[in-house]
């Protein structure tokens, strides 16, 4: 499946708290396994990436779950 999220971003870190990369996010969404093990806290800790995470999850068609307890 193609998405408008630029593939050149894949090696870059999206969440600096859990060290989640854009590529890992893309792979987890494609496999329907978001969030991957160990990355459940993405977007919940320092919250600095939360806006970008929500944006990317919408692009990739995943339910965010970030704002739910």
């Amino acid at each position: 499946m193609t998405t408008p999220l630029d593939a050149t971003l894949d090696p870059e870190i999206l969440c600096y708290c859990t060290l989640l990369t854009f590529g890992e996010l893309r792979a987890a969404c494609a496999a329907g396994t978001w969030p991957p093990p160990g990355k459940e806290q993405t977007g919940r800790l320092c919250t600095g990436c939360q806006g970008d995470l929500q944006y990317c999850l919408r692009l990739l068609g995943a339910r965010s779950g970030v704002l739910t307890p």
Partner: protein
Amino acid sequence: MSATFHEVGYAHLVELVHQRDRAARRRLHSVRLSAYAGDGGTCRHGRLLVVFDARYDARVFPYRPHHYGYLHRRDSASPPLYYAVNATLGGVPDRIGAGAINNFETYLFLDRAISGHHAVAVGNLSRFASGQAEVMSYYDGIRHVETLELAPKAHTEIALTSERNGHRLRRVELKALFRLASYVVGRRASGELALFDHMFTYFK
């Protein structure tokens, strides 16, 4: 990841590793510095949002080390300002027991009368998402709210009136959907910076 604001005419140094620790400095794996104009575009003149993406040996610094800044207007006789650089993205905060939300921040002003002009400088480090925020200032119980929206990498200053209806400015708060880079800024009548300090997370 840390962020600060730089203005033309100032000498501005940032220590990327805490307390001039020579051995720790060798643990720095990489550092990338980026600067953005007020509209989020690439570096031009005026106030810049400066972002430090510094990565360390995780065995030595499993968290984000404190970064400190030194700020001095060139040719000024005033002493320099020394401040803690705003932590804006990451650093495994759950491992140091800092899992509370940090997108609601506050700053209390000193009891003595405030001279000069004050403002809150706010920047959005997101790559894609616009950031909405409210700046709330308190004047002995009188509350004033300003709202703003920042495009990715955009930044601005929200001026704070020092007095309203005879009541002095006591406190300012920043509430946002996610964490933004923010500083309280104070200027003398000449425009020279006299205060440059990060805000404090409200909940601990």
